[in-house]
């Protein structure tokens, strides 16, 4: 049976038809939205349900990907204690974020991931050196996309939990995949406007070299010869997306 030509017409014009949900998630940062929402909230009022606390609470809920009921909100103290214990490995080493303050609202510098994140961020942002007697420590937390967030030294404890984030447990979820991610990021850093086909070949070679036989490379976004290839990792589905963007 032939299709409705109007439906076909609009489908042809739909720029998002090749975008997976995972890729959309990669492109839209919920963390940034929550920070903006908190920033847009009026000054605190004396009420216990004032907006800043609502913002923190909301962010925690967002990062957990769950919807808390009002009852759960009322027992937040108990929940916070449970969250404190939550630790996990880095899933994505595409990059890491060095935050200038102890808030997701503070400016973040996104840098290449490495095995000494505190030293890297400290050098980059000129954090004060913690005194030997003091209890100030940098905080290593996990963002919802599985990458590392690094916060400056402070004497406060449980900072990841306060921000609604998991605490980094010091491990990589999958070292082979991490190696692949670092190599792929390195490739794209040195080839800022590669063609999609060349980038695909390079990624296939990297997969082979790292023995990741169950991974796939997909082409998406703009497909014109003038477009530039960019990179997106779909860790759950084991896909490398080569996304064509405007030059």
């Amino acid at each position, binding site marked *: 049976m032939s299709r409705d030509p109007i439906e076909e*017409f609009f489908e042809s014009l*739909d720029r998002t038809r090749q975008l997976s*949900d995972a890729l959309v998630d990669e492109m839209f940062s919920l963390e940034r939205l929550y920070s903006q929402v908190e920033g847009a909230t009026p000054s605190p009022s004396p009420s216990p349900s004032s907006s800043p606390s*609502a913002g923190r609470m909301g962010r925690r809920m967002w990062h957990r*990907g769950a919807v808390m009921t*009002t009852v759960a909100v009322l027992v937040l103290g108990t929940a916070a204690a449970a969250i404190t214990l939550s630790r996990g490995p880095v899933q994505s080493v595409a990059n890491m974020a060095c935050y200038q303050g102890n808030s997701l609202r503070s400016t973040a510098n996104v840098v290449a991931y490495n095995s000494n994140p505190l030293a890297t961020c400290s050098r980059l942002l000129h954090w004060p050196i913690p005194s030997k007697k003091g209890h100030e420590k940098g905080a290593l937390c996990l963002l919802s996309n599985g990458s590392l967030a690094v916060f400056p030294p402070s004497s406060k404890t449980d900072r990841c939990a306060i921000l609604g984030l998991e605490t980094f447990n010091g491990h990589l979820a999958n070292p082979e995949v991490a190696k692949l991610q670092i190599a792929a990021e390195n490739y794209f850093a040195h080839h800022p406007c590669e063609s999609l086909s060349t980038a695909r070949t390079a990624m296939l070679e990297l997969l082979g070299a790292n023995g990741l036989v169950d991974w796939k490379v997909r082409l998406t976004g703009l497909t014109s010869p003038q477009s530039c290839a960019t990179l997106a990792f779909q860790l759950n589905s084991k896909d490398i997306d080569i996304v064509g963007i*405007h030059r």
Partner: protein
Amino acid sequence: MSDAEGVADYTRLVNEHSRSIYRYVMRRLSDWSSCEDVVSDIFLIAWRRRDQLPPRDRELAWLYAIAFRVISNQRRSRDRRNRLTVRMALEREGFDYGSDDDSFDVDSIMSVVKYLRVDDRVLLEHVYWEHLTYREIAVVLGISANAVGIRINRAKRNLRLLLDQNFERDRPSEILDRKSEG
């Protein structure tokens, strides 16, 4: 509604609908790098209006209505800035696809788009891209459901005429397929 309930509802709203809103914006903006800012604006407005959140079955249309206005405002201000550019010939029609994106730069399709009335196109986009009902489109565009029905029939008739003129030999998808193969 308490503030805690408002926050919980808003969180659920974002979790459930952020992808749909992101796609809605991406379909209509040529510059994908600005999509995140636009989506953030939409959800910030939703946050400020969280006390007006409709019942769950109407939430998405409510968000689309906010998105429609944010995008329209953005186009209007950009149009003012770029009035003298040649590209404005298309953008004044409200149609906004990157000129260097040749997967859409297919003469036959673009000629149809150029001659399609803006109102007709906006209505049909909501039918074929977001698959909204007449009642939901009425919410988004701020017109009556009856008017939506009448205008969609007219829009389909107009578009069929244009398509018949432009695609006597080829269907849109075949043109695009050939383009991507080449």
